[in-house]
């Protein structure tokens, strides 16, 4: 019985993660501008990764592998937003036609 419950929990979490990634992929290919695409890719990088890793942790049970998978998600959650932050910074600083895409408040 407990195996059965675990299987369904894992399956449901995995499906949610895959749906997140599907949303991400659709967004990346349908959006035209880099900041919109970054917004779409953020869904997969945070939620999709969270659900898939969570399901894998439940599937592997309590052992050393679980800890390693946990380290994986911590590492990804630390590095991925940093690199995204930098991509957007570079875009904001280098695009001369930024006002076509982004509405910014005028600096006082």
């Amino acid at each position, binding site marked *: 019985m407990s195996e059965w419950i675990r299987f369904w929990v894992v399956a449901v979490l995995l499906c949610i993660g895959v749906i997140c990634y599907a949303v991400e992929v659709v967004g990346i290919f349908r959006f035209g501008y880099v900041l919109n695409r970054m917004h779409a890719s953020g869904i997969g990088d945070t939620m999709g990764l969270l659900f898939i890793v969570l399901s894998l942790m439940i599937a592997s049970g309590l052992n050393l592998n679980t800890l390693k998978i946990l380290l994986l998600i911590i*590492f990804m959650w630390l590095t991925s937003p940093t690199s995204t932050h*930098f991509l957007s910074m570079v875009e904001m600083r280098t695009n001369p036609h930024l006002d076509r895409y982004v509405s910014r408040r005028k600096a006082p």
Partner: protein
Amino acid sequence: MKEEFRSWIMGESDPMEELLDFSQENDLNREERRKLTVEKLRVLQEDPDEQQKVARVRGRFTRFYYLVAVLSCVFLSCVLLFSISMLPQYGEENPRTTEVKDRYIEKGVEETGAVNVVSGMILDYRAFDTLGESHVLFTALICVMILLRIDRKNQRTGYEDYYTIRSDVYYDLSKDSILCTMSRVLLPAIVLYGIYILLNGQNSPGGGFSAGAVLGAGMILFSAAFGMQTADRFFTMKACKVTIFVSLAFYSFAKGYVFFMGANGFENHIPKGTPGAILSGGMILPLDIAVGCVVSVTMFGFYSLFRRGSIGMDVDYAHYSSKPGKAKGGRQV
């Protein structure tokens, strides 16, 4: 004649300067170059004779290009198909390759003392090959240095100065609070992991090349987060030279010694240790460290050279930039 040759060697004059007309144009800055290109195109559009001449030359060249492309493709396909026909059938035992592979797998641990068979292969059986690979990295670093390094001969060329050019300062994202905080958290883990796979290369997957890549990436992250000036405090030109020279010289001498004292299964007096321990595998651990040093220094050197054209602050920039256009030997505009 002799004087011309000497000045060409010293980089003061270029005999091809008159023949190749791009040498002058490239010295201009972007705006003027764009104006020149627009002017050229305008002249070309107004002059039908010139247009015809260009079209004729271009057509001839295109035909020649297609001919050579087709011929070389056919030739290459023939060579490849011929060599494929010489390969053994799929699934058939090939004694020439399986012999070596079986030997490595069966006797590898016993002969090299390394649990990781790949480490035993690249640093014991085929250590000479790895020596060549390290020297390839070293040569690549030298070539990039030749092409990109800004020293006192070419640092003031009038159109580019990496310390005053606007973009480098403008796009410099170091000292960003998010990146600094993240680097403080991540850098110890990255460096520790690099050192771990460097020292554990003979027991687990890893070894010099991957550890060098991890350490080099850590150094790149450090310099990107805390600024190039911070990285200059420990990574100077002298440190780069000394590290690479000591590593390669140590590798050459140590492996040469092993070769002469008996390698590849012959008796030698270098202790192999118990397989699985940190100090096992004979010369594999020191050679791994040497390779790791070379790889990490090469990676960071590439980054530093591409980023700003120098490794460390090896030229007194303040002194030279105070006298614009007076640097010796560089081309003046």
